[in-house]
């Protein structure tokens, strides 16, 4: 299914008018302020929805996430969060980078509490809030450890908990599992899907892995173009992933619906 042009229109679900959790309208982005890297990108993430974005290396996926996080000012277009314009202002959405970015000098609990303490919350109150979540995020008995004492998967879980504690209902994730080995990656991905559903956050995730995108997302955006060769990237299409309700994620990867969606994404990538 190729993408249709998006306008500032509400999304209708089951006949009820809903405003998307996150929306990018006609975003044009640049690395240096003059050369367009991403042109006219339109992205919509519904409340509680997990959306993926795939594209070749260097096509500007991270540039889009930076703009959605408010870290950069777009050349054109705007970013709406629940219908409110937040273009170029950070602090409204939670962002998980490719690297876990845990601070080596802080123990695990202090690391995950960082978003809370930065807001002025006392350490004691922040710890009280975060401590019960450690087990839920697979980090039981790690609160007094240093980040270097954690495995790669545990570090990503800690980064995910820190992202969650930012307290926003929209998360941006930049290849969060790419640094992990295949087995840990799959485990963590499955855990992430269930945790996201349980927490009810809307997520936009970048990945290089088409299988991962289709397994995780209800919608996959495909970014095409080659900015370093002077061809600005744009969203060449989107694929809606039809998932039977009740089927587990492992089962889904064995279904024809999964294969069909994967083929569609690959076709768009090779266009």
């Amino acid at each position: 299914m190729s993408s249709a042009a998006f306008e500032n229109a509400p999304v209708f679900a089951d006949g009820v008018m809903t405003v998307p959790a996150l929306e990018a309208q006609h975003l044009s982005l640049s690395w240096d302020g003059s050369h367009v890297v991403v042109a006219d990108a339109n992205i919509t993430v519904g409340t509680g929805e997990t959306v993926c974005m795939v594209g070749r290396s260097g096509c500007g996926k991270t540039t889009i996430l930076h703009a959605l996080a408010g870290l950069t000012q777009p050349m054109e277009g705007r970013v709406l969060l629940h219908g409110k314009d937040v273009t170029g202002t950070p602090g409204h959405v939670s962002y998980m980078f490719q690297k876990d970015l845990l601070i080596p000098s802080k123990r695990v609990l202090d690391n995950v509490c960082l978003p809370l303490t930065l807001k002025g919350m006392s350490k004691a109150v922040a710890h009280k809030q975060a401590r019960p979540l450690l087990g839920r995020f697979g980090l039981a008995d790690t609160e007094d450890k240093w980040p270097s004492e954690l495995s790669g998967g545990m570090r990503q879980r800690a980064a995910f908990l820190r992202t969650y504690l930012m307290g926003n209902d929209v998360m941006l994730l930049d290849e969060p599992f790419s640094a992990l080995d295949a087995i840990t990656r799959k485990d963590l991905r499955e855990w992430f899907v269930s945790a996201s559903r349980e927490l009810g956050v809307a997520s936009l995730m970048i990945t290089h892995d088409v299988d991962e995108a289709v397994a995780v997302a209800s919608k996959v955006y495909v970014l095409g173009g080659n900015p370093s060769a002077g061809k600005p990237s744009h969203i060449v299409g989107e694929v809606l992933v039809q998932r039977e309700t009740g089927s587990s994620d492992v089962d889904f990867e064995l279904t024809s619906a999964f294969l069909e969606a994967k083929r569609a994404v690959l076709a768009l990538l090779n266009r």
Partner: protein
Amino acid sequence: MFNFSSKTHRRRLVVPSIAIIALLAFWQLACSAGWVPGFMLPSPIQVVQALIYDAALLASHSITTLIEAALGLAIGVALGFVVAVLMDRFETVALALNPLVTISQTVPTVAIAPLLVLWFGYGLAPKVILIVISTFFPITVSLVAGFRSVDPDLIALMRTMGALRMQVFINAKLPAALESFFSGLRISATYAIVGAVIAEWLGGFAGLGVYMTRVRKSFSYDRMFAVILLISALSLLLMRVVDLMQRLVMPWLKAERNDQ
């Protein structure tokens, strides 16, 4: 694994110890056999005897030198910290101060010391100023490099958390700079002792440099070597103190090293 690492640790202690003992034995042999005249090179035993004989005097001179070194080092560290923070915060300040900071290190200490004595007299001031000049550079350079070693993505992440500039500095930049700061401090600590001694050579009433000048003038080379030995020992002691401080201030470093 444990046996391997403890073996390696033992080797690291034993090999240099043997090298030092061998050097001292050769030195003693050279003196005892008369290969080098006694008035030119005292034997290690004579040096140790001089050290013991003058212990009380050396201790009082050492205190003066250590006070000068500590004061100069403290001011050098404070000044280096302020300059490094300004250089990190303001690009223009970095551009303006970079050559000056480098020049401060290229000025030969021995050449500038007489001028400082001329300007500030034989008191504490010229000694402390010379130590500040010597110690300021390693601290500034190491701190600036440390501040800049922070992953820009961490700063971007903290911005998405609404962090203020000061919060980024305290939570990310300062801890990231600590390791290189302590490397700079280790170098500065040795420069501080040497700087104090050089300043004392050119004038003063107490300190190891003053003692050194007196024994040189009386051709007491055994005492001269004794004070050289003491200066080395004090420098090593200061470096050890810096190591201990680093362990206290950076407890996570142990976990990182165990992980490697």
